[in-house]
C-alpha cells in the first residue's frame, strides 16, 4: 500500500472527511502560496493540475486556467520544481493528461513525481486497461495511481477499478466534465457500490461547487474534491487569503 493510501486511510479512520482542492500549477506567480493557504485552511490533500493543451475531461474553467498557465510557460518540470520547494506534509496529487507523461517518459515521470514530493497521480484519459506500464513505474516510486469511477461504469468495471485504484477511489458524480454541477449527481450510489467491493477511501468529485454540495457529498463518502469553483476564484484574481476563506467555508461545511 502506497504512502498516500496509508495517509488517506488514517484520515478516514480518524473520522475526518477529506477535503481535496484542485490548483492549476503556475496559474499565477504565487500559486504555491495559494496551495499553502489551502493547506493552512484545512485541505487534507491537494490536487495539482499540470496544464495540457487538450484537456479533454475539463470544463471551461479549468481549460482557461490551463491555457493561462501554458501561456506563462509552465511545464511539468517547472511545476515539480515549484512543488519541491513547497515542503508540506499534506499529500500532493498530480493531475494531468497522459501525453505529458508519455512524452516525458513513463519511468522518468514517475521518478520525477516522487522526487518532487508528489505521492499520487490522476490521469483522466488513462483507462485502467491502458495503465499497466504506468502503474508499474509508479509502484516503483511509491506514487499512487488514482482511478475514476463514472456513473456509466458497469458493476464489473466498478469492481475492477475499486480494486485497482490506489490512494482513493475517485467517484465522479456526473456524466460531465469538470465544473458541471447540474442535477443531484450519482456520487452516493457510486460510493455505496465501491464500498461493497473495496475498503479504499472514496471521494466524490465533479460538480462540487458549494459548501452545501460538499456537505451532502461528504455525508455519503470519505471526502470531496473541489476543482472548478476554486479555480474560478483564482481566475478572478483571488489571493491566498481568498483561498483560505474559500477552503475554510468548505472545511466547516463538511466537518
Amino acid at each position, binding site marked *: 500500500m502506497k504512502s498516500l493510501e496509508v495517509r488517506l486511510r488514517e484520515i478516514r479512520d480518524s473520522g475526518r472527511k477529506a477535503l481535496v482542492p484542485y490548483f492549476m500549477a503556475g496559474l499565477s506567480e504565487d500559486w504555491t502560496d495559494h496551495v499553502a493557504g489551502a493547506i493552512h485552511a484545512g485541505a487534507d490533500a491537494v490536487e495539482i493540475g499540470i496544464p495540457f493543451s487538450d484537456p479533454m475531461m475539463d470544463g471551461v474553467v479549468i481549460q482557461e486556467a490551463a491555457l493561462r498557465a501554458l501561456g506563462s510557460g509552465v511545464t511539468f518540470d517547472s511545476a515539480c520544481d515549484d512543488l519541491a520547494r513547497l515542503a508540506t506534509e499534506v499529500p500532493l496529487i498530480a493531475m494531468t493528461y497522459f501525453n505529458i507523461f508519455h512524452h516525458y517518459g513513463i519511468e522518468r515521470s514517475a521518478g520525477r513525481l516522487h522526487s518532487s514530493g508528489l505521492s499520487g497521480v490522476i490521469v483522466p484519459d488513462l483507462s485502467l486497461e491502458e495503465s499497466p506500464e504506468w502503474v508499474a513505474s509508479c509502484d516503483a516510486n511509491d506514487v499512487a495511481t488514482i482511478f475514476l*469511477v463514472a456513473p456509466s461504469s458497469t458493476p464489473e468495471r466498478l469492481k475492477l477499478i475499486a480494486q485497482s485504484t490506489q490512494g482513493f477511489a475517485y467517484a465522479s458524480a456526473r*456524466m460531465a466534465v469538470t465544473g458541471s454541477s447540474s442535477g443531484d449527481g450519482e456520487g452516493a450510489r457510486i460510493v455505496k457500490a465501491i464500498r461493497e467491493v473495496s475498503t479504499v477511501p472514496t471521494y466524490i468529485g465533479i460538480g462540487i461547487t458549494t459548501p452545501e454540495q460538499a456537505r451532502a457529498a461528504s455525508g455519503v463518502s470519505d471526502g470531496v474534491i473541489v476543482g472548478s469553483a476554486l479555480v474560478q476564484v483564482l481566475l478572478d484574481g483571488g489571493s491566498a487569503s481568498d483561498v483560505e476563506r474559500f477552503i475554510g467555508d468548505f472545511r466547516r461545511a463538511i466537518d
Partner: protein
Amino acid sequence: MSDSARYMAKPDERGRFGEFGGQFVPEALIPACQELEVAFVEAWADTEFVGEYRQVLHEFAGRPTPVTPLHRLSEHLGLSVFAKREDLAHTGSHKINNVIGQTLLTKRMGKHRVIAETGAGQHGVATATAAARLGLACTVYMGEVDTLRQSLNVFRMELLGATVVPVVSGSRTLKDAVNEAMREWVSCVSDTHYCLGSVMGPHPFPWMVREFQSIIGIEAAQQLRDLGVDPPDAVIACVGGGSNAAGVFAGFANTAARLIGVEAAGGSAVGTGSPGVLHGMRSLLIQDEFGQIEEAHSISAGLDYPGIGPEHAYLADAGRAEYHAIADHDVIEALRLLSELEGIIPALETAHAVAWMTKEAGQSLRSGSTVLLNLSGRGDKDVAQVRAILRGEQ
C-alpha cells in the same frame, strides 16, 4: 513482417495496431466505447446490416464511384494514372461512406442522436446529411474560427437540420472541436453516438472507420482488375486523419502495391511528429518539447490535424506504407494541373496527393508505372480560397 496478410486486419484485443491505437478516454466513455465495439462487431458480421449499409451507399450516396483513367495527365507525367472518384460521392467526398456506416449503427444501437466534430465542415455536412436521411438529431461541434472561415458550411448543416455549436476553447479549430465533442459525449452518451470523422480516436473508431471506408479500396481493386491492372504499382492518397487513405489502402495492403500517404507539410504527423496520446489514441502527433499538442497549419483545412490515425502510424513503423509531405505552394499548381488536363477540380486535400505524384513521376514513380490516385473529394468547397490565393489576397 513476412506475412503480408496481416496488414489491415483487426487490431489486437486492446485495440492496438502494433504500438499504436488503444482507448485513452475518461472512464465515463469506456463503457460507450466498449458498447460500440460490441455493436460494431455484431453489425459487421450481420449480413443484413452490411446489406443495408451497402444499399444506402448505393442508392443514396452514389456508389460505386467510378475509376477514371486520367489519359491526359498520364501522358503529361509518363505514368498510367487512374483516379478513384470519391469526389462523385454524395456531399463531395469519401466522408459520406463513414457517416452512413456510423449513423446506421447509431440506429441499431437504439440511439436517436449523433454528435460530430468538424474542421472545415466536410465531415459535419456529411454527418448532418446522413442524420437527415435517417431522421436522427444531429449536433456538430466546430471551432469558432472555422465557423467564421467556413460560414457557408455552417449554413449547409443548418439547412440539413443540424445544430452547429461554435467551440470557443483552445485554438478554436479542429482539435478543439474534437475535445469539445468528446466532452459533450460524456454527458449524453446514453442516447447519443459520437460520429467521429476519421480513422482516429479511441478504439474501435480507427478500425471501424477504416472498415466503413474500405469500400473505396475494395471497389477500386475490382475496378482496376477489370481494367487489367492488378495490382497497380502505387496507391496514393492524401492524409489528414487518414480515413480516405486507409479506405483505399485496405484494398491493396496485401498486394505488392506501394502504399503512399501524402500529408500537408504543416501537419505532417509522420514526418515531423512523435508518438503521443491524444483524442483517445496513441499515435504520431505534432507536439512541442513538453508534449503540448501543436496546431497544424495547412492550406487545406481537411489536413489541419496534428495527428494521424494509429493504423497509419503502424503501417509507417512496419514499413508497409510510406508517408510524404507536400508544402502549400505545390498544392495550387497540382490543383490547376488536374483541372486543366482532366476536367476535375480536386479538393485542396486531394491536390496534395496529385502534387506528390507530379513531383515523383519519373523519379520514385518509374516511368510507365501504374498509379491509383484516390481522388478523395471535389474542389468546389475550395475555389473561393484558391482564387484568393492566386490573386494574392491570402
